[in-house]
């Protein structure tokens, strides 16, 4: 059961979207979010949807994966829709019951919001679906590197993230082992009421934490042995090189962003 956990849900592939420079992908995703929120009418939203589905098609990842990404947000979407539906009181009244009132404007806004948020989630999933977590970390480190000037610990953060990623499988395996060991000693982890299960979880967490600290200590020594001394003067094996396609993708995104802003003004 624990083995199913995936972080970031990366789908390896070699589509053009996979091959884009991760730094550009992050910037494009940010522009994309701005694009979705700057257009205030249906035409803008349609352009946004066109952009989203175009990119999804290019990534050659099954569309159902993207619908799945929206699933955990369904409750959030429903609440947003209801709030918009009942709190919007301008426009023609379509339906009325005691203090509840649905207007055509309200209906319109709630549909608009649902589509917008769904697009937002699907579009940003594309980033994590097509970029491995470690590449993503690397790209974030490089994008944030100007912040080093104001003493922001960019390298340290990226190092922590990549070590965390490295140790996720190790710690999952360890948790599995501890769970089996505690079950063999009669601990009830899968049964009982919520509070008993929560209490029994302690018997797993304590050994897990102790072992994690021990690992951290040993890893620190091993890193020192290999001359680790922070980010200063470090070179990298992984080279990020931007290709013409990255600039084209960025240009296309900017074009769409401008288009959405213009369309938003016109209509």
């Amino acid at each position, binding site marked *: 059961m624990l083995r199913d956990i995936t972080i970031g849900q990366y789908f390896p592939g070699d589509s053009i979207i996979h091959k884009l420079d991760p730094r550009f992908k992050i910037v494009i995703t940010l522009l994309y979010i701005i694009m979705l929120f700057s257009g205030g009418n249906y035409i803008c939203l349609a352009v946004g949807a066109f952009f989203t589905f175009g990119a999804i098609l290019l990534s050659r990842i099954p569309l159902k994966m993207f619908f799945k990404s929206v699933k955990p947000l369904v409750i959030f979407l429903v609440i947003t829709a209801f709030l918009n539906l009942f709190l919007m009181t301008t426009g023609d009244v379509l339906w009325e019951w005691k203090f509840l009132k649905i207007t055509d404007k309200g209906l319109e806004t709630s549909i608009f919001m649902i589509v917008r948020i769904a697009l937002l989630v699907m579009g940003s999933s594309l980033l994590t679906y097509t970029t491995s*977590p*470690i590449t993503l970390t690397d790209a974030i480190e490089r994008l944030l590197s100007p912040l080093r000037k104001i003493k922001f610990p960019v390298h340290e953060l990226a190092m922590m993230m*990549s*070590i965390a*990623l*490295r140790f996720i*499988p*190790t710690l999952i*395996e360890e948790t599995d082992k501890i769970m089996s060991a505690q079950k063999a000693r009669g601990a009830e982890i899968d049964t009982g009421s919520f509070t008993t299960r929560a209490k029994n979880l302690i018997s797993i967490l304590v050994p897990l934490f102790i072992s994690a600290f*021990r*690992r951290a200590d*040993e*890893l620190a*020594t*091993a*890193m*020192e*042995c*290999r*001359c*680790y*001394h922070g980010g200063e*003067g*470090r*070179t*990298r*094996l*992984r*080279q990020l090189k931007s290709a013409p396609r990255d600039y084209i993708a960025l240009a296309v995104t900017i074009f769409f962003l401008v288009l959405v802003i213009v369309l938003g003004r016109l209509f």
Partner: protein
Amino acid sequence: MENIIEIKGLHFAYESDDEEKKPVEVLKGIDLDIKKGEFVAVLGHNGCGKSTLAKHINAILLPTEGTVTVDGIDTKDEERLFDLRQCAGMVFQNPDNQIVSSIVEEDVAFALENLGVPYEEMRRRVDESLKAVGMYDYRLHSPSQLSGGQKQRVAIAGVIAMQPKCIILDEPTAMLDPQGRKEVLATIHRMNREQGITIVLITHYMNEAADCDRVVVMDKGLVVLDDVPEKVFSQVDKLKAIGLDVPQVTELAWELRKAGCDISPEIISEEECVAAIEKLFAE
């Protein structure tokens, strides 16, 4: 031959946080010289100070008293710390806790990245090191997909990439299955033979020590025996007294000798043992 590691009068005590308690003395005056290109095994049972000794060789710990010099660099010389660590690489017991990156080749490159080696040079050295330990085909794998022996070989590759003059291995096979152990030992022996890297192998497996040029036996923070394996293992009584075993064949020869047979006590390999026993029967 020139000495690569010189240890003189090394004392080391762990300071305790509690000031009233006396510091625990782990190393009580060790003198040890290791020559270039030598393959030395350090034996001793748990708590005899062998890991502590290893940590002194690349300045993870500094001596309380005495000096440790590696390739002419005093370990107390902070200015040359990175030279020292590049010269004396270290491999630890648990392969999981010394691999830093989620991709094999990036882990091998870790030390080179830290040392600021330029890209082309780094690429070449990473590929060479991975080929040297026979893990080149796995360069893009994640460490979690590898077996213990493979992980340990990746860790060795990460050290070799620094082009060290000597490698200290602290019980590198203790957590491996027999297959992994064989792979790792073969790799270490090849590094020693082909690249002339000095090896200090800390172990508690007698068979591993039997294949070395020289065996150093430690007990209670002191070096008690230091000689070629044949001479060390022939002192069965002394080894047993400090809680160590000898290789099975040596023990067999020893028992036969006690029973009055004329057999050499300096037997450490199965072939030697078979030959000696055949000779006994022939007589």
